């Protein structure tokens, strides 16, 4: 237990150290954006001193770390707002997108993988496999663009961007929620189309392996029907590894949300991150890396624990 917490913290520190180092080592001066004709050379020096940019790298890192432990993630270079506030503001939107995406992916991939694996090399399986291969080969951002092209521009069914129509601010809460959902459809579809194939293939492979096992043959020998065998036995055995694979695909899911939030102007952490990258807003970037890493590492740990809890063969 303690070992687990220690490794969590070590990982977190390492990730933040590496990110910090990479950012600071890059050419290009973040103070450039503060340039204005009214400033002289001494002002630049002062600004650098204020931001501690002249200190040696490790010192800068320690200072940042100390601040973080006190809950201060710094202030954005571009907006001056506290980083923590900016990120927390964005968190709900990202969570809404991520959680609904993950749920949809699981709800679609599990049955498809199950039935494909149960009847391999039949027409259903071929269709599903072909569709999976095709969607895996599409760039995620292009899926978004195509969906916008078709459903927003051509058919005008969904908005191309945003989260909530500003005109909605006076409306009752449930109407606002409905509007958010309306805006959510396209980014959700993009994430799901891009992400579902991997899980389908994984599930399908597991199901094929499971059905070949002796205990399935033994169940048949006891007169159990194919339906019960598939939906009770094969299903439970196949759902165990899914928990781990979900944990492992968290980094990809979060990375993918960057581009999708950018395309749809979805006001989540991803969009914040991308904007910060272009603006070289280091405090925001470090804050985002920190929070994202915490989410990913926590997700991994939870997936690990969930697996232990669910698989009776592993006794903690």
């Amino acid at each position, binding site marked *: 237990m303690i070992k687990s917490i220690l490794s969590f913290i070590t990982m977190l520190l390492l990730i933040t150290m590496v990110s910090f180092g990479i950012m600071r080592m*890059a*050419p290009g001066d973040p103070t450039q954006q503060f340039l204005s004709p009214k400033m002289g050379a001494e002002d630049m020096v002062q600004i650098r001193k204020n931001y501690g940019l002249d200190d040696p790298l490790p010192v800068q890192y320690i200072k940042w770390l100390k601040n973080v432990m006190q809950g201060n993630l710094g202030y954005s270079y571009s907006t001056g707002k506290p980083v923590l506030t900016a990120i927390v503001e964005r968190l709900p939107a990202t969570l809404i997108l991520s959680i609904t995406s993950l749920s949809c992916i699981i709800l679609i991939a599990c049955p498809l993988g199950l039935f494909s694996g149960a009847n391999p090399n039949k027409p259903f399986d071929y269709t599903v496999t072909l569709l999976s291969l095709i969607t895996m080969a599409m760039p995620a*951002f292009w899926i978004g663009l195509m969906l916008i092209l078709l459903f927003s521009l051509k058919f005008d069914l969904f908005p191309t961007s945003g989260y909530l129509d500003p005109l909605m601010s006076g409306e009752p809460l449930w109407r606002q929620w409905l509007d958010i959902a309306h805006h959510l459809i396209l980014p959700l579809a993009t994430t799901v189309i891009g992400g579902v194939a991997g899980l389908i293939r994984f599930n399908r492979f597991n199901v094929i392996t499971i059905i070949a096992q002796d205990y399935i043959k033994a169940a048949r020998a006891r007169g159990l029907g194919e339906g019960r065998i598939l939906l009770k036995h094969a299903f439970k055995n196949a759902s165990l590894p899914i928990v781990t694979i979900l944990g492992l695909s968290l980094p990809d899911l979060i990375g993918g949300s960057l581009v999708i939030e950018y395309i749809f102007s979805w006001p989540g952490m991803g969009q914040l991150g991308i904007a910060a990258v272009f603006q070289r807003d280091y405090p925001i970037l470090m804050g985002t890396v920190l929070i994202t*890493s915490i989410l990913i*590492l926590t997700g991994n740990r939870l997936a690990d624990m969930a697996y232990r809890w669910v698989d009776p063969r592993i006794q903690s």
Partner: protein
Amino acid sequence: MTMSLTKIAYIFLAGMIIIPIIVSVLNLTNPTSFSPLFTGDPICPCSEHWLGTDDLGRDLLARCIDGAKISLAVGAISVSISVGIGLILGLISGFYGGIIDSLIMRFVDLFLAIPTLFLILIIQVMLTPSIFNVMAVIGLTSWMGVTRLVRAEVLTAKQRPFITAAKARGISNTTILFKHILPHTLNPVIVAAVLGMGSAILIESTLSFLGLGVQPPNASWGNMLQGSLAYMTDAPWMTIIPGILITMTVLSLNIIGDHLRNAIFKNS
């Protein structure tokens, strides 16, 4: 049915490699010249321009073929870098074990925990994006899977009796590693390379789309898509066609990779 699909994939990929080479060697098209028919709006697909033109009047087919060269080149070189790194780290980690192994594996875990795209974006924004640093950056962030794969192969090969026999004959460790163990790792590495190339092409197209990859006027399917954003309603083919090309190329690579993997599996 999968067999014929595989054949189609090989043919498509071969075409993707050969056609651009022939076209540029024979100077059949000009991706940078402006169409005489251009009047300010992109021209839709017609007899003079099979895929239409872009917003500056450049023939889209020519640009796509040009883009093929670059996307495939970037894919191939990035994958070579990542496979090279992965192979060396995996061999060392698996063979020598101990502290080196733990260290390298920790390193792998670390890199796997960072969202790759995020890291790449951060790095790219620091440097001035160009084809070369795109290749380097993708290569330097995609070696983790290969390392694990190679390490696993080395661990299995290490147990085999012929290795113990070789050691007993006094053959040096380095020779054992490179002459006896390395060949066993090549099969899964080739599969990983083919599949990795597909993934590299996807990453490059995303980077170029964001403006952090291949820069105009060099044509990459990704940056062509960036240019298509403003014209989505007026010239949808600018958005549709490069994307289809990316998808078909990556799809072919994935099918070929799967096919190779099944073929190896049958032989082992």
